[in-house]
């Protein structure tokens, strides 16, 4: 018997974006206040999991045809690259750089290389979480 989950599917389409943008917010909040790549990644993964629950694994894989292992690899390379960048300019590994810029709309903004590292963490967390969930889900 097929369950009627119209309401869940309809809501999930909206709630996915709400959760996703909240994840982006948490990600950028991360440097000075609680948040960051790890939590942002988990929240994003939970948004995708909501889609998987509302629809099913195959539909979501068609919707987001991503090989999550590549996401992990790209995240790792980004994180390592940010950390290793300082080696090439003669500073110890993991030294970070930041400065203040005046951007249109945003005004005075601090741009930080740590955010790139955090983006790497974000990708790794999304990739690992989704790989685990997909692998377990497929076995049914």
């Amino acid at each position, binding site marked *: 018997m097929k369950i009627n989950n119209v309401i869940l599917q309809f809501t999930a389409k909206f709630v996915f974006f709400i959760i996703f943008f909240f994840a982006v917010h948490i990600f950028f909040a991360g440097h000075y206040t609680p948040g960051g790549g790890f939590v942002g990644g988990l929240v994003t993964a939970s948004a995708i999991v909501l889609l998987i629950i509302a629809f099913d694994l195959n539909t979501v894989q068609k919707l987001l045809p991503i090989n999550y*292992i*590549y996401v*992990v*690899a790209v995240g*790792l*390379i980004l994180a*390592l690259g940010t950390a*290793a960048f300082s*080696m090439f300019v003669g*500073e*110890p*590994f*993991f*030294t*970070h750089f930041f400065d203040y810029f005046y951007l249109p709309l945003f005004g005075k903004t601090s741009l930080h290389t740590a955010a790139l590292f955090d983006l790497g963490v974000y990708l790794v967390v999304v990739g690992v979480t989704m790989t685990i969930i997909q692998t377990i889900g497929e076995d049914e």
Partner: protein
Amino acid sequence: MNNFLLLPILIPFFFGMILLFGQKKLGYQRITTLLGLMISIICAFALMLNVNQNGPQIVTFGNWPVPFGITMVSDMVSALLVLTTLVLAFFIVWYGFGSIGKERERFFYYPGVMFIVTGVNGAFTTGDIFNLFVFFEVLLMASYLLIVLGGEKAQLRESIKYILINVISSALFVITVAYLYSVVGTLNMADISVKIAEINQPGIVTVIAVLFLMVFGMKAAIFPLYFWLPSAYAAPPIPVLALFGALLTKVGVYAIMRTYTLFFTHDLAYTHELLLILSILTIVAGSIGALAHFDVKQIIIYNIVIAVGVILFGVAQMNEAALEGAVFYLIHDMIIKAALFMLIGIIIYVTGTTNLRKMGGLMGNYPALGWFYLIAALGLAGVPPLSGFIGKLLIVQGGFQAGNVWTSIFILASSLVVLLSVIRIFIYAFWGEQGQLSSTMNKSTYNLLFFPTIGLVLVSILYGVGTEIIQPFMNEASKVLSDPSIYSDAVLKGGK
């Protein structure tokens, strides 16, 4: 500040990442892995020469001032171990081409190897006790992958045990680090060394020392915490077994060596006496296992346990001769264990069985294999001029200097048991009537397995014959171990 010492850690890490792409392309996977290890070996060798000339190399992450940031310290001990690790990984990966199987190669075997090397090298290099835990986790994560990869029944059974043991010991590790932090208020290993010396190691620090011995002893397989090792190590295929047997237990041994020479040096009568007793019991337990089994894998696996006991006996003496012997023996044991596992891997491949009773008469068809096995076996037992001799000699010399006459004689006697256990394989497998032979064996795979093995046996012979050349490096290493102030001064005063 010198970022160069990070390269032997970062290069395998980077190559592990790019190996995550192109999962199914075997040629790409194999060549990239060997290339990555080759570059790392060159860097590690250059690092070793640099450390020899300029003393310990320091870098503190993120440009933080020294006791606060995470410091990486490459002294002679860690530089030697890092180089050995990479050389062994190179030969084991090469050997794996012929025996690991295409299925595993397509399923992230090579990234697993690269990440395990990253973790092992990181653990050897780090100068921060909590960071040591992090690198332990890195190598354990990769080892979980390698032990279960392939999904055979025995592997699944043993991997559950293996993960459980390691999760428990990791939890204990964090708790112990927290205890230590609450007493001395720092995580930097050099700083801990100075702080413990200042408060003159009260009873609580001795308790923490014993807890550390438990945590690292679980990984290093000392008595009575070795119970998980023989069955867990026997489950994965030979290249993974060689990697685990040569590297993983040695990380635990290194951690004991480091903490017991750098931190807990003020109550030798308790901590090092305990270490001495446990090391003797470890040798006894290992010897019984090595003589009792008729399974070639188990015999060599129990020899790991014996060697751990011998090295820790050297650490327990806490004088320069014994520590030099311990470093000598540690590196000898890493090389020779990898070589022996590779050799018995070939024997198993040729005969199709691990049971000694079914083997026999291989000398007729495979004389070269027989002679190389004999050389490796004699090297393991420490017959001069092969590689095990000088390490054991120095350990026993240190034992006599420290006044532990009877236990030193016991160490010498244990060599006979080691010799007996490995010669038994030689006698059963190579002499006598023609035993069982595998029907699926082909000559080109045999050669693919044989050449890296010979290479590693030759490395071990060079290590023994070239003692004269290696000795200054070892001497440097033992100085750092026997005088903790060299290490802490280099980090706290020179680490700018």
